[in-house]
């Protein structure tokens, strides 16, 4: 597998009214084409900031992010993001939300509609095309957000703790769904989470970050066969290893 994205020595600090807060302290790793990579770290460690830098929504102080060798300078059509609080457009229906990226890309109407409906089906929301976001449950909203991002066919799908607002049952179900969708679409996914089990269940590799200021502790390969068994010895051992890694 080839390197799609190169993250090189990213440093980032924020100015609070008291002092300068170093958040990311020289993070470097590569993302391979087609892989499901998870960025894992304790709450508030800056993993979301790292994802926002990759998305182009935030500027790093030092270092660079290269996509196919080209430096990322701002948001672009090659990267789509799924947010923790969904950020669905409340004035658009499910179909309208999914059509958004296609309208931006000036895809002909008929083609866009067919495509949108195909992706709504992919995330299991057929029959809800005309519903507004406020009429849907949390899990359904996140499916819409996923379809809205996937329909743009970005090179990389960025996901910022997309399941953390859901209850435990829905979250497990959505993890299974996400892996299925990833298998079907063969997208490169960068998935930010603070949940070790979630990362081990879904990811090919896990970039484990330390507490703030975040450094890369390890890049863990998850060599477990899919579909993964959350209660197998290997699964639990790996969870424990990563847990100890973060605890230090």
């Amino acid at each position, binding site marked *: 597998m080839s390197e799609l994205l190169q993250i090189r020595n990213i440093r980032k600090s924020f100015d609070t009214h008291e002092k300068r807060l170093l958040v990311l302290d020289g993070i470097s790793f590569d993302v391979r084409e087609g892989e499901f990579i998870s960025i894992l770290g304790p709450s508030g460690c800056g993993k979301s900031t790292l994802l926002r830098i990759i998305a182009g929504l935030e500027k790093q102080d030092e270092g660079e992010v290269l996509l196919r060798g080209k430096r990322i300078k701002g*948001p672009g059509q090659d990267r789509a993001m799924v947010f923790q609080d969904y950020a669905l457009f*409340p004035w658009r229906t499910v179909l309208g939300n999914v059509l958004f990226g296609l*309208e*931006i890309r000036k895809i002909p109407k008929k083609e866009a509609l067919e495509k949108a409906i195909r992706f709504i089906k992919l995330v299991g929301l057929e029959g809800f095309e005309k519903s507004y976001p406020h009429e849907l449950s949390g899990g359904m909203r996140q499916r819409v957000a996923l379809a809205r991002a996937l329909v743009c066919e970005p090179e990389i799908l960025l996901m910022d703790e997309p399941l953390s607002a859901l209850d435990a049952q829905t979250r497990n179900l959505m993890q299974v769904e996400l892996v299925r969708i990833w298998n079907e679409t063969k997208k490169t996914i960068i998935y930010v989470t603070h949940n070790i089990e979630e990362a081990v269940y879904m990811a090919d590799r896990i970039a484990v970050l330390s507490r703030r200021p975040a450094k890369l502790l390890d890049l863990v390969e998850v060599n477990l066969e899919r579909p993964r068994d959350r209660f197998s010895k290997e699964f639990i051992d790996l969870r424990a290893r990563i847990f100890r890694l973060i605890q230090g």
Partner: protein
Amino acid sequence: MRFEIFKEFFIFFISIGVFLALWEAYYWIFIQNPFVLSPPSKVLVTFVQLIVGDPKFTETGFSMPIDMIYSLYHYLYGFFFAIIVGFSLGLIAGWSKKVEKFLYPIIELIRPIPPIAWIPIAILLLKLTHTAAAFIIFIGAVFPILLNTMYGVSSVEKKYVEAAMTLGATKTTTLLRKVIIPASMPAFFNGLRVGSGVAWMCVVAAELFGVSQYGLGYKIQLARLYHSPDVVISYMLAIGIIGLILDRLYRIAESRLIRWRRGFVVE
């Protein structure tokens, strides 16, 4: 459910009926002078005659449908420009902090001046024309529209803009068109409704000064000179009814166009 609706109507008619009865009694007990005040029974007759165009009134130039058309013309003329100016300035000022800071002193200086205070300058500048009337209406309606739009735009949540950007909408014009404007529609409509109410009140004020020989406001003044309180009150009634209808129309348009707001507060 049927019974509830019936009860609502019952209370409505009782309320109106008590008001009219008191008015009628007041006239016959204290006034008894048709050149000073008219009882509702007389007003009702006059109102109908004015609407259907009884020769008694049309001979002296009182035809309510024509006056309504002129007043609505003044209203639409002024309100149209108030929407254009209010919306575009509100959009720019809501989007850019610099423009907002620049516009703020001007707005805050002009806003407290009542539209009526502009009448002399409107007449001097534009003479007794429809444009002078429209100008007063414009002054009255533009600020509610501008300020509400500005508020709507500046309070669009950042996450919608960011989501749009990561979906490929990186140009400012695209963001304005696809995110900012639709997201601020509820606030804009609020400004439209408030602005329309003010504009309609300004129609009467502007016409009172005789910018044209037709219009509901002008005829109220004229009827006073003729000592016909029944005509005065009939025209007042017409103004009230049209104002009510306009407000209802905006509410209906609002709920049609911004369907997504439904049940938003409950959440």
